[in-house]
């Protein structure tokens, strides 16, 4: 099922959670909604699920207006950050919930639940209560529960946010593989750009309730539409008047067009890469990422003065020339 969000705004008192957001999520995609906390990303997901109602704008599911539709009639699966496990029910009853209330035959429910428990690798835990599961297990149970009635959209609100790093990495891979198997339109909210880049095939970046940019992970990284996206998706350092990626910095022993004179503060070798900490004439610190080969060719040493330039150039924010100003407005 495709999702279309049209000019959606939502305020909570004086706080604007979403400000005229329009976003299309194609059928079968795995989309990450990325942004810092308070950027409105969770509110957007809850509006798609029907758990919040927008102040204005529309939500279309499969092309049909669903703005006023109750959550139970939207055919969506929702996974909460803190699992929202039904504490008074066993794992089996949790997973079976959507089917039980639809009054499906017992045999069918049993088979479907067994199938789902296998999918989330909780076969041996059917008769346990959620309080006796670890965080990762609870979240897998919540996923199985959300998938039970075969929803047309799977929505995940910071699904791995409450888990430790190792479990989080595991579940990311697992979500990716699940999506390849089940192919349900999936939207997940995260504040972790690495997680978004790793899992999603499309990323929508939010800041202060506004959609900054939407595109494939590589697109956001290589062609960020705003300074915010550049800073938020991947590392960014300031080189003279520009913001650049650390790996785009090229160091030379002679001055060049637009090159900035810098002093080498420290060189750290990190396997195949090396990190070079630099400081420019005005005392601004920046970091360059060089390959070991480059570093060895240049034969750089500490305290040396070199010239840094960036290739390819990313000039952000855009210079206020006629063409750029227009592009800047389009980003809004």
């Amino acid at each position, binding site marked *: 099922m495709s999702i279309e969000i049209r000019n959606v705004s939502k305020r909570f008192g004086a706080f604007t959670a979403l400000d005229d957001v329009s976003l299309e999520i194609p059928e079968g995609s795995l989309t990450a909604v990325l942004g810092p906390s308070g950027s409105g990303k969770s509110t957007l997901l809850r509006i798609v699920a029907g758990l919040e109602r927008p102040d204005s704008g529309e939500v279309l599911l499969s092309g049909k207006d669903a703005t006023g539709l109750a959550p139970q009639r*939207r055919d969506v699966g929702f996974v909460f950050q803190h699992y929202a496990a*039904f*504490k008074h029910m066993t794992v089996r009853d949790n997973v079976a919930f*959507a089917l039980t*209330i639809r009054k499906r035959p017992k045999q069918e429910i049993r088979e479907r639940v067994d199938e789902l428990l296998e999918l989330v690798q909780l076969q041996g835990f059917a008769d346990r209560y959620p309080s006796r599961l670890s965080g990762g297990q609870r979240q897998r149970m919540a996923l199985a*529960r959300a998938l039970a009635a075969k929803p047309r959209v799977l929505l995940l609100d910071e699904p791995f946010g409450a888990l430790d790093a190792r479990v989080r990495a595991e579940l990311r891979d697992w979500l990716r593989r699940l999506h390849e198997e089940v192919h349900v339109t999936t939207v997940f909210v995260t504040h972790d750009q690495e997680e978004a880049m790793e899992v999603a095939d499309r990323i929508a970046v939010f800041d202060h309730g506004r959609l900054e940019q939407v595109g494939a992970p590589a697109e956001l990284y290589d062609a960020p539409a705003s300074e915010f996206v550049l800073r938020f998706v991947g590392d960014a350092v300031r080189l003279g008047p520009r913001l650049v990626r650390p790996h785009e910095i090229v160091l030379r022993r002679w001055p060049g067009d637009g090159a900035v004179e810098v002093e080498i503060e420290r060189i750290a070798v990190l396997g195949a890469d090396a990190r070079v900490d630099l400081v420019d004439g005005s005392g601004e610190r920046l970091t360059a990422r060089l390959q070991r080969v480059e570093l060895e060719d240049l034969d750089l040493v500490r305290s040396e003065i070199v010239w840094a330039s960036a290739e390819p150039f990313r000039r952000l924010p855009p210079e206020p020339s006629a063409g750029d100003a227009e592009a800047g407005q389009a980003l809004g």
Partner: protein
Amino acid sequence: MRRRLGLRAITLGYLLVVLLAPLAMIFYRTFEHGLEPVWAALSDPLTVHAFEVTLIATATTVPLNTVFGVLCALAIVRRRFRGKGLLNAFIDLPLALSPVVVGLALFLLYDRTGWLGPWFMGHGIQVLFALPAIVLATIFVSVPFVAREVIPTLRELGNEQEQAAATLGATRWQRFWRITLPSIRWAVIYGVVLTTARCLGEYGAVAVVSGSIQGKTETATLRVQDYVQVFQTSGAYAVAVVLAALAVAVLVLMTLIKPREEAV
């Protein structure tokens, strides 16, 4: 260690003097002359009737106040509306008001010159000095207990589980029966137990509105008073002991519930 022992001695000693001694005394006096006078008093038709009135009032009040208490708690925790603070404060009114005041207020309201009295009289319904007044007084004094137990449990529960149930296709009604109610069940039961205890023991408000007519509008607690007034102490003791035994049973029930509630 010594300080803890001291603390224990003080609390236990206090309870002993204030609570247990009077209770023990009443049990002692009741069975002082054997079971016969006790049985005689309890099998007296007037006493039996008094217990019947108390049970009818309790059996009517508890379900009503349970439903109201749960609805009230849901409204206070889950909804935003004008006057919510007022509602929250009003629930506690029966705890703050003396039952005698409650009784007097009800008396005035349903009296022939009150706001509601003439309407009921016009329809041939006797409220004062009859069962309706007893039930109304009992309802009034036992309003807060279920809501007071359920409100904190609902707050702690949050509404994420219900939202999850909604996205899984559950209607509002299914969410209530399958998620909300099972999650607050121990709080509801605890509230019901407290409400029951309060209903059984109600005296002051009922005394004002019932008229205390023997064999008609006399409740168990009023019966105790009645026996005392006519110096038939063994009867008073017997009825009091039954009421005390019921209270102890309620207490035991509560202690049985409590650890389970904590385990969930």
